[in-house]
């Protein structure tokens, strides 16, 4: 199950070391046990003393939000009161809080470790460590999907099996092989590069194969450089030659019968390959990379002191960031990049669609643990939703997609999302049962409602601000009011002070 998968021996060792270091620091640095933050590292939203004060008011039946003391989430109040009842002394309370914070920090460390294992792009310390290079290959399993990344032992270092061309042998030193799709249009200098091509020059051969296909319609731009044009023409010729050669090869090398069914399968395979190339799998020894990242995260000199002050008041944010993940992944993948020959969106291969969703969700986990503000989440989400929805509206407007298709595609994307969510937690082949789709869709809608209501609240606050400001200016204009008079004498501070 997941704890065994997530807590690898390295992680267990690091987390245990972290606990020991924190405890020794807390006990022995100042000569007396000190588990509470110093002033420098506390914000009003992460203060334990304020939380205790709020819980005291809460127990007495007074609303803790009436003053300016308590700014944290309301669900923290009963938890703090329960904790004070259990601990019964200030010292025990501090120790309990300390342990809770360390638990949440460990969650952050686990999230970072998973990020580096699955979603990191070429960790920086690889040339230093000279680790064993891993080869990836895309193997067709007969259904047109790229089935898996083969283990290094399965495939020889210099060989890749592609569905169309058959086996390709590469002679470069780097063994990382991914068919790539150009991320960019030709720039103003008349040539284009992909970031994958730039990172890894050995993929140039494969890039040539796909460049011409994707840019035949768009032209070469207005470049004045002759070299680029010469190169492009060369690549086209090479591509034609290679394609002509490979028609014979594919039938011999590939045992699967998918290619013989017709050109449509080729197109779907190509599309799936392109999709696969969008998010490259991590390269190199990801375990050591993860260990180094987690060490950096845990044992930074300031974090050692300031970890105590994370609170656990941000349970709301998962929903919000997951909403971003839905909006971003589903629409980007299904409706913009990948089309079949008929011009219909291609939505068959789920495992590719899920992958970037994992990335965003794993990043969102980090954001949750490190407590971004609710206010900022409210800002980010509507923008992402607008951007993603705009595309569908655009497609509907230009006649490529009717209104029924639009609605059905939206519902489909919602169906696709939860399985991506579940597979983010370790098992990529797991998918949600159908009964779970509707509750998760409701959760999504609820988070959307939360954002809109939050925006309403913010706009109300801003209106209140501006209303008091207008009052101020009008009165000063009409009655030649002394602006520098204190606000309490003017009576204008009521609007503002009642808010805060």
């Amino acid at each position, binding site marked *: 199950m997941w704890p065994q998968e997530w807590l690898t021996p390295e992680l267990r060792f690091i987390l245990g070391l972290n606990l020991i270091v924190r405890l020794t620091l807390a006990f022995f640095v100042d000569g007396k046990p000190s588990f509470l933050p110093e002033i420098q590292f506390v914000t009003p939203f992460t203060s334990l003393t304020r939380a205790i004060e709020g819980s005291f008011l809460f127990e007495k039946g007074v609303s803790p939000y009436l003053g300016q003391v308590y700014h944290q989430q309301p669900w923290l109040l009963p938890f703090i009161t329960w904790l004070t009842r259990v601990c019964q002394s200030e010292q025990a309370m501090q120790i309990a809080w300390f342990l809770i914070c360390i638990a949440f920090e460990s969650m952050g460390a686990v999230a970072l470790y998973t990020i580096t294992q699955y979603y990191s792009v070429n960790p*920086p310390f690889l040339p230093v460590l000279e680790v064993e290079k891993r080869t990836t290959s895309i193997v067709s399993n007969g259904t047109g999907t790229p089935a898996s990344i083969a283990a290094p032992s399965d495939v020889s270092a210099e060989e890749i099996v592609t569905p169309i061309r058959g086996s390709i042998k590469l002679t470069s030193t780097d063994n990382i092989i991914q068919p790539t799709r150009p991320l960019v249009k030709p720039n103003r200098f008349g040539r284009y590069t992909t970031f994958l*091509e*730039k*990172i890894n020059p050995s993929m140039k051969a494969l890039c040539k194969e796909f460049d011409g296909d994707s840019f035949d319609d768009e032209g070469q731009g207005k470049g004045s450089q002759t070299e680029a044009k010469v190169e492009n023409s060369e690549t086209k010729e090479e591509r034609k030659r290679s394609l002509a050669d490979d028609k014979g090869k594919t039938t011999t090398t590939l045992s699967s019968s998918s290619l013989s069914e017709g050109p449509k399968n080729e197109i779907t395979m190509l599309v799936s390959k392109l999709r696969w190339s969008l998010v490259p799998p991590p390269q190199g020894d990801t375990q050591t990379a993860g260990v180094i990242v987690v060490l950096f995260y845990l044992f930074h000199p300031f974090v050692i002191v300031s970890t105590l002050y994370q609170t656990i008041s941000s349970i709301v944010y998962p929903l919000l960031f997951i909403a971003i993940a839905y909006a971003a992944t589903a629409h980007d993948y299904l409706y913009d990049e990948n089309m079949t020959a008929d011009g219909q969106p291609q939505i068959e291969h789920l495992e590719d669609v899920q992958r970037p969703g994992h990335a965003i969700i794993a990043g969102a986990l980090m954001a949750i643990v490190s407590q971004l503000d609710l206010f900022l989440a409210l800002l980010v989400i509507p923008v992402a939703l607008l951007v993603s929805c705009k595309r569908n509206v655009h497609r509907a407007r230009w006649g490529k997609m009717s209104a029924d298709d639009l609605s059905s595609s939206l519902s489909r994307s919602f169906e696709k999302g939860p399985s991506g969510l579940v597979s983010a937690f370790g098992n990529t082949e797991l998918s949600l049962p159908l009964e779970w789709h509707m509750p998760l869709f409701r959760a999504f809608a609820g988070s959307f409602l939360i954002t809109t209501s939050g925006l309403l609240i*913010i706009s109300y606050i801003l209106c209140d601000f501006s209303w008091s400001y207008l009052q101020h200016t009008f009165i000063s204009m009409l009655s030649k009011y002394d*602006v520098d008079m204190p606000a309490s004498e003017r009576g204008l501070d009521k609007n503002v002070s009642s808010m805060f």
Partner: protein
Amino acid sequence: MFSTSHHLLLNIVSPTVGILEGIPNVGLFWYLFNQIFDRFRLFFVYAIQSQLVVYLAIVLLRTRKHLTSLALYNVVIVYAIITVLKPYPEHYHITSMFALLLTQMAFIKPRSPTRLVIYTLVYLLVTVLSLVMHRVWTFTLGNSNVNFIFVQGVAQTFVLLLILIDVMNAVRSLFTLPPNASLSAYARTKE
């Protein structure tokens, strides 16, 4: 007129919006809003908070076509912007941002490795010095004051902004190349 829920929402949301608490932290704005006159306060609240909206919107619109392919990278950038412009930041945000950036170093590696190393060293130096200053302030009273904490926040934010500029430049360099650049030369330099 106002119910309890009204106070609840305002007490959660308004301190972030209105930057009300002047307690020293790692950020920049507590000092400004402690020193400022009340009549200018509202204007500066508008000015500073609107910056956050503008920058985040610009970044998200600029990278809207690559939300998935550069997903973690976008998360890092947004995270850094939020950390800089937050009213109540913590060290935790900065370090976790760095840790996330470490996973995406391939984008920045050809661009400016030495500069990144220099920034990181400067940042570590700032952290160590500020720890020392904080000790001086709390334990030997009178030898230091709260301005030292503010200076530390300024230095940290300065380094963070430089790093952020490098990161954004690396993103831009993914999409453009200089006129006479050739990939073979790049490959030679890499080897």
